[in-house]
């Protein structure tokens, strides 16, 4: 699965996710990637794209739940994303990660697997590409 989230100069947010599914999948199985609110979500608070064990991301309505934590609980995007990926997801037995960005350009890239291909670039030149946990 691959994905991207962005904040543009007009202050608008967007999210996109694309996947080739799961090796050996059957029965027309669909994961979270095309499920709006689970694997992909954007509003005027944040934009989220997920990757991981899709069934769990669907059950947790993962991407929208990050936004809800920010809106209703006042969490930062990083706190909200980490709560979902590092607490809620493994508590059900799922794994994976997500990327997110908020209206101010704050980003988050948590995952609870061994690795996640991830990277970013900001308006001020700051950027990085990583694979493993640091």
């Amino acid at each position, binding site marked *: 699965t*691959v994905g991207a989230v962005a*904040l*543009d*100069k007009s202050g608008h947010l967007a999210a*996109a996710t694309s996947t080739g599914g799961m090796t050996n999948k059957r029965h027309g199985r669909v994961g979270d990637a095309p499920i709006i609110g689970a694997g*992909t979500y954007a509003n005027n608070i944040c934009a989220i794209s997920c990757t991981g064990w899709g069934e769990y991301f669907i059950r947790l309505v993962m991407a929208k739940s990050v936004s809800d934590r920010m809106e209703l609980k006042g969490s930062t995007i990083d706190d909200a994303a980490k709560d979902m990926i590092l607490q809620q997801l493994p508590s059900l037995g799922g794994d994976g990660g997500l990327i997110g960005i908020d209206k101010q350009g704050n980003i988050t890239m948590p995952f609870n697997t061994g690795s996640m*291909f991830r990277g970013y670039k900001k*308006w001020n030149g700051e950027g990085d590409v990583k694979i493993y946990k640091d």
Partner: protein
Amino acid sequence: QQPFAIVVHGGAGYFGNQPEAVQAAYKAAMQRAIDAGYDVLSKGGSATDAVERAVMVLEDDSLFNAGKGAVFTHAGTNELDAAIMDGSNMKAGAVAGVTTIKNPITAARAVMDKSMHVMMTGRGAELFARENGCTVVKPAYFYTKHSWDALQNALRKEQKQKETNKKKAMLQPDNYDEKYG
């Protein structure tokens, strides 16, 4: 200056300790996707255009499980899914189970921009994408030896399981190791 930024992922899983050259190849591909999206943003383009462009770069790269690098289903086919959402207006589009769209994210974008729907699946989604200018390829376009070998390994494992416990082998959730392709 008004802040703008792009964040990209290429999947999470258990990559193991790979040789430096392999890691470098993945990082270079990720950087290409980031740069493609950033280029859109730096020129004043929309976040929606930026994420679509970045994802297309990764879909065109067989290193990743999307587009060209899609993994194989049990039936030996490639079924691709994609979604996009524009936070400025809450519009969204998604496709699932498409087999002939070169860049599924462009089909998701077409659903969002050119239909009154949010999600389309299978042949209908493919027909809609084709009618709206998405590039169509033969299913063979998505073949990679790596993904094919991964399916064969999964099938062999499944066969072994079947021999020990027929019922257990039929359950999709047991397919833990294959979920990331």
